[in-house]
């Protein structure tokens, strides 16, 4: 698993499409993930669900690391086209939600939700892009809710309260109450790049932990070299 950064490579050197992951705000214990790809204008684009109805397709910040995908060149080119299509088809945005159930792109590249208040996180957005094209990276039925997931989920819903309608918040809270598995960005990143997919949580623990160490180290070293840089 080769991890690239602006300190040892350049975004322009990516091989068609890869995973980008980072800790955009060093002081927050929160990673962010998306797909980095070469778009039809031959430019590097970072497709990611930044927040509630904020689907972005922009140039990545130097704060992100990137990892090559475990895919052949044909499938990489196909997936890059899908990324651009997903952005074009969902410019109105995609809601943010903590539960994966009933949300995805499985039908036509357009985000669909079985429940009006369902949504995706940055990590489940990436999972659904892969799964919609038959690349099963996560063995979803094997992922269960853990008590520790609730802490993060409540924090994120607290932040969401400022911008999302009350009904959307209540739906998320009901999901938390019932118990909803969390897919961490670093787990999804390693699941996308390692062979022998799809993954249950257990085999991802060690590689995800190693990747997290690198993410934190990169965030620290980036902050030291660029102390005045603004958050994305």
């Amino acid at each position, binding site marked *: 698993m080769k991890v690239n950064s602006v300190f040892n490579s350049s975004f322009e050197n990516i091989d068609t499409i890869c995973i980008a992951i980072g800790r955009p705000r060093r002081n927050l214990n929160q990673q962010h993930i998306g797909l980095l790809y070469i778009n039809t204008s*031959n430019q590097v684009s970072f497709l990611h669900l930044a927040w509630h109805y904020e689907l972005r397709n922009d140039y990545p910040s130097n704060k992100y690391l990137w990892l090559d995908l475990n895919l052949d060149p*044909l499938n990489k*080119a196909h997936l890059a*086209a899908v990324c*651009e299509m997903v952005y074009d088809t969902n410019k109105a945005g995609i809601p943010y939600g903590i539960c994966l159930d009933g949300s995805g792109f499985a*039908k*036509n590249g357009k985000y669909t939700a079985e429940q009006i208040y369902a949504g995706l996180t940055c990590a489940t957005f990436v999972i659904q892009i892969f799964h919609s094209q*038959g690349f099963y990276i996560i063995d979803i039925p094997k992922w269960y809710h853990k008590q520790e997931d609730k802490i993060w989920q409540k924090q994120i819903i607290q932040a969401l309260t400022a911008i999302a309608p009350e009904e959307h918040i209540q739906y998320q809270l009901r999901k938390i109450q019932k118990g909803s598995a969390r897919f961490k960005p670093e787990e999804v990143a390693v699941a996308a790049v390692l062979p022998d997919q799809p993954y249950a949580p257990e085999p991802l623990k060690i590689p995800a932990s190693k990747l997290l160490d690198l993410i934190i180290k990169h965030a620290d070293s980036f902050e030291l070299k660029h102390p005045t840089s603004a958050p994305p």
Partner: protein
Amino acid sequence: MNSVQPFFALTHPTSSNGVLPFFPPSKFYNNTATLLFEPVQGTFQRIRTNKNSSTNDKIVLAIKVDRAKTSTLKIYDFSPELQELLISEPWVTDFYQKAAQLNDTKSILPYYKEINKIIAEKKFKECNCFINNIKVAELSDILLVGILRLTFSWKNELPSWFALLENAKVELGNRHYDSNSVLRGLI
């Protein structure tokens, strides 16, 4: 009994503006003479060879017309569904003509959007007809996997999807790809 003309014997005089109308079917009944036929890129023609039956009818696409006015033709068995599809979705003609050259993200994206559009509109019959008439030998390497992946969520609505998968497996093998690896998740 009407004789069926060998398809490549059918030719047609060049029209003055270079764009051909549909052939009036009556022109081909019992016609044993060689007719001049000069297809124009971006068009398709239905050819009738027997007035009592459309069984042997063909649809022809011109895929390359160069300065020397030589053309490469693609021939499809006629069906009312295919004719309707080519009329209602002009991008399909374009796709069949160019499929071998669509080998990068930029060139495939417009067609991906069109395919997604007909799926979003639940035009499964049209989508199935599109898939059914794909000739895997004429698909670019990316499209050999891309069309299957793009439509696999709807494969149960698209009976021709499974035949395309089988044909793509063989074709990928012919092109020295590991089809099990390239098509993983679909097989």
